């Protein structure tokens, strides 16, 4: 692309990025709003919401539930998904295409169907809905995403490294924990972070299976009818700023490493 086209893509893309940022900036700005009952009109700057986050009824409890659910579902899904990913790349077995289909289908099914299906199942089995059923549901939809993420890492792993371990008389267990696992770890961490993010922000499946328990997204959904308190903005903004800080650090260090590599080669 030359001439005008060269600038057009810059302008268009920067506008698109600004567009993506608008509601984020809005949410953060309104976490500082001196709101009383509703947080819709700007009434002036205050730090009160940040200093007394838990003042809004139930918001901190919902946030705590979301963290708990996210952590447990992430651990379960990452463990189960990593095992499947290793088996898919390393082993020959029958029903391979049925297995990949079973892994693909949950990602191709709309959340509302997953949520209603689980709710129908719990209803028929007479299981009471609550944090437990939310964890079961979140683990289910995270597994496929873990498999996809970790699988790429397993596929790129050089088997010669493990062979070297075996040649040096390491037991299979030692080979796994001292060679395979550390090499897979970046992929596993990426998968775990993704699972946590998916679980933490899930609303649709949760809403069908939460019973009377409240997660952070379901708190916001319920509050939307009467006005969302600024404290919810505070929690969301806090999580956002923390996550962005972590991502920025990892991205920039990776970019710096690439640049260094480019210079030396």
């Amino acid at each position, binding site marked *: 692309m030359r001439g005008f086209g060269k600038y057009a893509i810059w302008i268009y893309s920067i506008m698109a990025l600004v567009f993506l940022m608008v*509601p984020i900036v809005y949410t953060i700005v309104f976490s500082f709003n001196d709101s009383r009952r509703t947080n819709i009109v700007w009434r002036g700057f205050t730090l009160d919401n940040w200093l007394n986050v838990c003042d809004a009824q139930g918001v901190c409890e919902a946030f705590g539930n979301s963290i708990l659910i996210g952590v447990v579902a992430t651990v379960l899904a990452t463990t189960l998904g990593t095992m499947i990913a290793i088996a898919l790349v390393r082993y020959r077995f029958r029903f391979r295409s049925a297995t990949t289909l079973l892994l693909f289908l949950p990602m191709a099914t709309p959340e509302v169907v997953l949520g209603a299906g689980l709710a129908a199942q719990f209803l*028929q089995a007479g299981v009471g809905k609550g944090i437990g059923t939310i964890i079961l549901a979140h683990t289910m939809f995270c597994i496929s995403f873990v498999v996809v*993420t970790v699988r790429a890492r397993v596929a790129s792993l050089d088997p010669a490294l493990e062979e070297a371990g075996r040649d040096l008389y390491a037991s299979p267990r030692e080979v796994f924990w001292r060679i395979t696992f550390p090499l897979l770890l970046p992929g596993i961490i990426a998968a775990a972070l993704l699972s946590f993010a998916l679980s933490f922000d899930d*609303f649709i499946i949760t809403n069908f299976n939460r019973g009377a328990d409240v997660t952070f997204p379901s708190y916001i959904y319920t509050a939307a009818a009467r006005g969302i308190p600024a404290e919810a903005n505070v929690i969301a903004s806090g999580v956002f700023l923390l996550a962005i800080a972590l991502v920025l650090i990892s991205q920039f260090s990776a970019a710096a490493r690439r640049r260094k590599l480019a210079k030396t080669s």
Partner: protein
Amino acid sequence: MAFGAFATATTAAEPVARRKSPIALLLLLPGLLYLGLFFLVPLFSLVITSLQQPDPVLFGQFENAFRWENYVTVLEQYWPQTIRAFGFAALATLFALLIGFPLAYFVGITLRRWPLLQALALVLVIAPFFISFLLRTIAWKQLFSDEGPIVGFLQALAILPGDAAITGSAFAVVFGLTYNFIPFMTLPIYTSLERLDLRYVEAGGDLYASPRSTFFRVTLPLAAPGIMSGTLLTFIPAAGDYVNASREFLGSTDTAMIGNVIEANFLVLQNFPAAAALSLVLMAAILILVSAYVKRSGTEDLL
């Protein structure tokens, strides 16, 4: 991100010779059993529920039956919401592609010479994932509200009549869906473009292809796996979404989608057979559309 892996998985080389071993079973079994129990069995529960009929004695209860007429009833009653869901999702996918593709091209190709800028732009693309999508949607609702800055501005320019509203309209719902899924569209396209070897593009120029035909003959085909993952990752959740179209968010009763009807029937009206039948209709329609699309695009092995 897994959304990237979605696109890369199709071409991932697997150099290892696969062994046969009982370990495979041990590794697979727990996860597959889990998916069987909490993905397949629920689908089966939906089938059973969708065929139930009201209990003749206990009001509000249902008993197992084989009432396939339930499907006819829900389709007769809710066909507008069903059509609307697919129409809105298709529009949102199109708009997300129109915004996401140039953005992915910009981040993946234009910014290659500036690694730090590229890293920063990529962070901005994924930033929406880190803040509750309900709050982002509420932010648009408030920006679009009747007293909000956007409506006031458009009215001052006489683009909008004085009594017009944006929230509650089909425009607002498609707008919200588009906004929410731009990152899902952009990231897979970015992953295919980011690995694109620019020498192919140069070769197109060397062989006297115009920039336009190089783009359509070289760049676009190489981005195809990403475009496909992106459209699926946008269209499927958009068709089932009920947040954007909900009355508390950007929609109104006139914009209700199939997801809203399923939610209302299941959680409010407690008409479980209707909700289950609608869920299965949605799932079947999506599977038919997706498999037709996947076949047409020629990438069978998505995972």
